């Protein structure tokens, strides 16, 4: 069965601190996809990144970076120099091979609070 674990329920940091959100996944598939979504206080789910299981290259987008390690089944998300606007709940998600399923399986989310 597929599963996503986000062990950190809540993280609080002060602006300009770096913060890493952990995500560990379980799947028996060799082809799968990993995602991060942001849910700001307004409630919508905002897509941040998608990774497929064959691409272990780390990715950087501005202050955001993602570290994908198949050996540890982890897909961690780092925010550098955090800002108050980064305050949100962040969800990691997994989907299986598209020939089989395209549903997203979400973790329980990590609430990030960035204080000024």
């Amino acid at each position: 069965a597929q599963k996503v674990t986000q062990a950190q329920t809540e993280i609080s940091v002060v602006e300009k601190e770096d913060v890493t959100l952990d995500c560990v996944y379980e799947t028996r598939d060799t082809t799968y996809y990993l995602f991060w979504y942001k849910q700001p206080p307004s409630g919508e789910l905002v897509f941040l990144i998608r990774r497929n299981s064959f691409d272990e290259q780390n990715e950087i987008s501005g202050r955001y970076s993602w570290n994908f390690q198949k050996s540890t089944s982890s897909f961690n998300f780092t925010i550098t120099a955090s800002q108050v606007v980064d305050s949100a709940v962040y969800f990691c998600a997994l989907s299986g091979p598209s020939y089989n399923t395209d549903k997203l399986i979400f973790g329980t989310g990590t609430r990030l609070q960035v204080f000024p």
Partner: protein
Amino acid sequence: EPEVTQTPSHQVTQMGQEVILRCVPISNHLYFYWYRQILGQKVEFLVSFYNNEISEKSEIFDDQFSVERPDGSNFTLKIRSTKLEDSAMYFCASTRDRGINIQYFGAGTRLSVL
């Protein structure tokens, strides 16, 4: 930038009543989804829909639930006889390419069953 639109933003209903939640997916998208998030919990998949058929559904999506694409733009979720435990945020999502599967979500409809 195109977006998924959901109405209403908040729906209050009495237990046992029928509700219809509405969604307008992004216009060139072909695959549609409903998810649910009970307050403070994770987002859970309900159903996926393509070519006017349900592609996949979860255990949550029982006979009380149905989906429909009544015209070329709307995608609806109907709950026939609401229960207290149906109170949740309901998200609609869509994607253009199932292979890439980047699902874009609406802002959600908060359903409160009293």
